[in-house]
């Protein structure tokens, strides 16, 4: 059943494409990158053995074009395709099409994706396997039935889209009076976002923790979990800090939830790497939330505490190898933490920030890893996800990991038009509740409502550095006489345009 993989097409961009390319290089597997016209100069393109342009910048004309990606794979004679995360990674039809084209899809089978892709189907599947799900109702779309079920569940509750994701088609209902209106608006939004207006009801879990388990399954029926990741630190449903182990799990609960995660994955006939997400309430009761049928953004946290390279493991499983370890051989060591670096401007309401990175210097040191998709000279465009890098650290203890992360963020130099959320991440790390491990999914909204970076006088050191930089760089190439721009295309005196300041 083993098929050696010799050449992989990476159907993604940014840091995850770079991450996968590096794993392939280590394994001596040839690589093909695909890219949009906007990404011709991107890091992932430069790192691959071959690269194929698949269309214009907008994702639906390039990274979401299954036909062009498959063409590229055929033309370059690849035998496998890794989808990364996002774009087509959880598209079951794409997974099937890749296999029909005679390629190995590095991920689960299409039917396992379908079983877990619909939130209601996933709830039924795992509930049958004995995994606790959030109490809810999904038996009917009739308003009278839904209203009766809502009374039984109790308020507040959530109306959620069956095809949902990313908070779309989701409504919180405080009391019975608001139910019908919320049903209608959730349906409208779901129809628009997913082309499917089915909804279901779920009990509202107050101030939950988001704790997810990494699972891996091979083609021989082995399914193992690799511990948890606590992703409770979220801003507008977007995870920003993840860690393992979770500050609220002990060995007993970890064993229990891990077994539930394995049971959920088995129930779906799941193979390759996936993630079972749980909500954990204030009484440490856990409920299945959903399954992500792909590699997660935050997978390095698990790699750090287990010492297992998940991308290499994915490729080995896809090639037909058996899991090289059993559950009892998985050991968690130390504490791992990840911060997501977003190109956004915390001083301007966290709006996406675009432009060129003039200088990037990544922090390097013991226990510090940076997975970056952009480097010096790269352009951050508005077309794609604003997450440009992840900083991952390992510490002996949680406190040690926080200290190391603080060091790493302080030493991550990203200069240019692009601004980042690093000042915000540092404020989160410094917060007392986070330090105490008390974060839940409402922590950021609660503790940082209306937050913006402290406005301070520019320190003399920054001004002195700027002045010296200019003096020292102008002595090597003598600056031209005022008014003359001959031979110096970069002279500020020659500029006739206006430019923005982005402090």
């Amino acid at each position, binding site marked *: 059943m083993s098929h050696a993989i010799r050449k992989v097409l990476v159907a993604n961009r940014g840091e995850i494409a770079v991450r996968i390319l590096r794993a392939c290089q280590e394994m001596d597997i040839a690589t093909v990158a695909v890219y949009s016209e906007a990404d011709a100069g991107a890091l992932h393109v430069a790192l691959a053995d071959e690269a194929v342009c698949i269309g214009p910048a907008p994702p639906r004309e390039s990274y979401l074009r299954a036909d062009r990606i498959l063409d590229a794979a055929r033309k370059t004679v690849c035998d496998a395709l890794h989808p990364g995360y996002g774009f087509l990674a959880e598209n079951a039809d794409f997974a099937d099409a890749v296999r029909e084209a005679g390629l190995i899809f590095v991920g689960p089978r299409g039917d396992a994706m379908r079983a877990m892709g619909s939130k209601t189907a996933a709830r039924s599947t795992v509930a049958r396997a004995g995994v606790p799900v959030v109490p809810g109702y999904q038996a009917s779309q009739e308003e009278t039935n839904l209203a009766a079920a809502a009374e039984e569940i109790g308020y507040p509750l959530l109306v959620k889209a069956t095809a949902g994701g990313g908070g779309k088609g989701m409504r919180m209902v405080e009391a019975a009076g608001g139910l019908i209106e919320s049903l209608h608006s959730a349906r409208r939004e779901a129809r628009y976002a997913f082309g499917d207006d089915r909804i279901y009801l779920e009990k509202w879990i107050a101030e939950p923790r988001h704790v997810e388990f990494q699972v891996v399954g091979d083609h021989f029926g082995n399914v193992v979990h690799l511990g948890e990741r606590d992703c409770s630190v979220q801003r507008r449903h977007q995870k920003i800090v993840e860690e393992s182990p979770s500050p609220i799990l002990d060995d007993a609960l970890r064993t229990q939830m891990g077994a539930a995660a394995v049971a959920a994955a088995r129930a779906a006939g799941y193979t390759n790497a996936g993630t079972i997400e749980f909500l954990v309430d204030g009484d440490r009761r856990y409920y299945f939330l959903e399954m992500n049928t792909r590699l997660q953004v935050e997978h390095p946290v698990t790699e750090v505490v287990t010492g297992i390279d998940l991308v290499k493991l994915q490729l080995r499983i896809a090639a037909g190898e058996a899991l090289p370890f059993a559950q009892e051989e998985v050991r968690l060591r130390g504490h791992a933490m990840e911060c997501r670096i977003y190109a956004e401007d915390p001083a301007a309401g966290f709006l996406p920030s675009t432009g060129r990175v003039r200088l990037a*210097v990544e922090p390097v040191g013991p226990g510090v890893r940076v997975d970056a998709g952009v480097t010096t000279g790269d352009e951050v465009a508005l077309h794609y996800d604003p997450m440009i890098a992840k900083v991952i650290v390992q510490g002996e203890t949680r406190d040690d990991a926080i200290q190391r992360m603080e060091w790493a963020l*302080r030493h991550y130099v990203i200069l*240019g038009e692009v601004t980042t959320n690093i000042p915000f991440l540092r404020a989160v790390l410094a917060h007392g509740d986070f330090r105490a491990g008390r974060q839940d999914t409402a922590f950021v909204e609660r503790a940082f409502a209306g937050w913006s970076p402290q406005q301070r006088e520019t*320190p003399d050191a920054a001004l002195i550095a*700027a002045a*010296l930089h200019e003096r020292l760089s102008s002595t090597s190439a003598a600056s031209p006489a*005022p008014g003359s721009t001959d031979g110096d295309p970069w002279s*500020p005196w020659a500029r006739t345009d206006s430019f923005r300041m982005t402090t």
Partner: protein
Amino acid sequence: MKRETLYRTPARTYSLTAEESALGWTIAVDGAAHSVSVRTGERGRLALEIDGRRVLAHVASDGARLWVHVEGETWSLERVADARSGRAGEGAAARASADGAPTAGPIVAAMPGRVLDVLVAEGDEVRKGQALLLLEAMKMELRIAAPVDGVVRRVHVAAGQVIERGAALVQIDSA
């Protein structure tokens, strides 16, 4: 050789003079002198010692725009004038007029915007770097600072006024 440069941030304008001697640099920020030694490294790295305190900085620039990373924080600056050459730079919102001498004509708007506040009156004595006007342009608040020490001869605009590119803002007679 002493030479003065103005750097602007959204908050204010700073005057920097730098002079090199056998002992190192003397750099004054708004007139306050610091004794500085520097070693340059790769990729915009500067190892500074400022009045005996060691500071590691990284600097990147694009024309008159500069970005500095120092002690974990990032600062954005714009060079607006170089006093030695007596020529105003191409400021984001205002620059000196035609022949480049900052004292010869009114300060004009380099992009359209709106006057938020006028901070000086005709006849006021002003110091170089002192804020004269607050403008809103491209959704940003910008301070227009005096390019020289002098007296405000004429204020051409009022708070609330919408201005076009090239509009005269303030005329200053240099001291």
